[in-house]
């Protein structure tokens, strides 16, 4: 049973934050990714550097931005520049992590944020498309994927459209297609569990489950076969102090975590 003194979104934010190592850099989107990055800065990673796609580098965020390009993302920044300059820095190898999400994901971590349906011309649902996601997923050293509403409709055998590359069709595929060596998704954080990828196959592997969740729950919610190792960790729920940071320091207006 999930403890009711924290929400799954809070847990996901804290689990995501813990993937970020101090002194590294991260390109973030709005919402949970930014909350995770800010939480890391306030706790174990004070020297984490935040990049925003639209051109803000290392701002002193006064409040949560609504857009990755809004005023807050350049507030007392060390540098305000262009979108292409951020992408160039990422390609040069300066950006360690990027957070991504999508409508669908497959066992190789390929993400679909373009469309649902089997006809590109007439999709059932049209989503935004890549935005910077494909750039981030191609160029950042590690992609951290956050997927809420973990279900077989979202965790599928084959995504309707590969918007952003995971490991494509398996080990060596990224390199074969010309993507930068040593890159790819490293973790998938869902509202049930935390996956990583098996080094020998690049197939998603259960790494940890949230308190109260069973492996069977994850299997039922996932539309593909993932690897179940012998040792499965349990994620650490947010502490009282963590929740105070989330609510009072990072999101006092209750935009991400409604009060």
């Amino acid at each position, binding site marked *: 049973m999930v403890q009711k003194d924290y929400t799954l979104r809070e847990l996901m934010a804290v689990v995501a934050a813990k993937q970020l190592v101090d002194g590294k850099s991260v390109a973030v989107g709005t919402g949970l990714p930014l909350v995770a990055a800010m939480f890391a800065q306030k706790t174990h990673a004070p020297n984490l550097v935040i990049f925003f796609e639209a051109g803000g580098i290392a701002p002193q965020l006064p409040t949560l931005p609504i857009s990755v390009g809004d005023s807050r993302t350049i507030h007392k920044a060390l540098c305000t*520049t262009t979108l292409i300059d951020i992408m160039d820095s990422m390609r040069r190898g300066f950006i360690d992590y990027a957070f991504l999400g999508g409508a669908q994901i497959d066992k190789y971590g390929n993400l679909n944020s373009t469309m649902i349906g089997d006809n590109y011309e007439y999709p059932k649902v049209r989503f935004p498309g890549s935005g910077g996601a*494909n750039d981030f997923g191609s160029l950042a050293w590690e992609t951290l994927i956050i997927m809420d509403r973990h279900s077989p409709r979202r965790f599928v055998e084959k995504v309707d459209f590969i918007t952003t590359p995971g490991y494509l069709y398996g080990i060596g595929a990224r390199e074969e297609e010309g993507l930068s060596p040593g890159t790819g998704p490293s973790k998938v954080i869902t509202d049930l569990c935390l996956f990583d990828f098996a080094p020998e196959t690049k197939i998603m592997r259960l790494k940890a489950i949230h308190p109260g969740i069973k492996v069977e729950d994850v299997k039922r919610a996932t539309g593909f076969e993932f690897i179940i190792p012998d040792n499965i960790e349990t994620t650490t729920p947010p502490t009282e102090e963590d929740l105070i940071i989330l609510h009072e320091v990072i999101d006092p207006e209750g935009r991400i975590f409604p009060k």
Partner: protein
Amino acid sequence: MEMKILKEGTGEIFCKNTPTEMRNWTRVNKTRALVDKRMRIKDAVKKFIKDGDYLAIGGFGHIRIPMAIIYEIVRQRVKNLSVAGHTAVQDIDVLMAGGCVSSVDIAYVVGFELRGLSGVQRRLFESGQVKKTEYTNGAMSYRVRAGAQGIPFIPVKVMLGTDTMMHSPGKVVQCPFTGEKVLLLPALNPDVCIIHAHRADMYGNVQIDGHIVKDDLQARASKRVIVTCEELVSDEIIRSDPGKTVIPFYMVDAVIEQPWGSHPGNMPYKYYFDHEFTEDYLTAGRDKDLEAIDYWLEKWVYSLNDYDEYLTKLGAKRLYNLRDLEFLRAPVR
């Protein structure tokens, strides 16, 4: 010796301008002299934006967007525009609601970031009424950089291996120097670029505070550039800080002083989002009854003669509250 094309996408190229044609066109059509380029938005749109043009929009979809020009394009019922969806949000949505758009180079569209999806855009894309080709934000910037540099294509290291690539016009080749695989994308040279900036002089020297996003490149790559600015200043002010001039005069065709010109978007250091206005707009666009969005357009665009009337309708208090919001301070009025 050769470079074999190993794979290629099937996406349509909507903008046909080539760098060589751009040069030849520029020679004849762009003045290099310092001439007064002030005009009314109405006249600038009439003069420089034609049915069927390929349009690039400055800013970041709902940040520093040239809304006064966007509304005027809708008001003049320009048709069959192709648009660079290089993070396009409220800007493209209003154009699409107004029926001005027939094809889009998609990097980011349909979404309003945290505010969710657009009903207007979903309808038009899902029904196939608006044509599309896929790119990424990085890819679109690279294409515009190639256009600005006057080269017909550029190698990139994104999109490789994905359906995004297969629905683009990209071609995969091996680098003749290193052997590594790269994706070649065609340059992008828009017909028109519209930009909202912090300040400009009457010759078209444009300065932007904060992040430039992609406006420098888009202005350099485009045939025509129309600029609105919060403040029209003397060229002496420009000359006192020429390193801040992001777009030099010879690229610019029209300059209009238009304070609050990005509403309901966020203009950094000037005013924050008009959240309520955008939410109301989104609600109208998501209504299954199409009259809702038509009513919105009638109310905020067609029934008004120009942006001055729009601002008057919004009212001073509403606008100044957005300034307070930008500076994270409580309103006093």
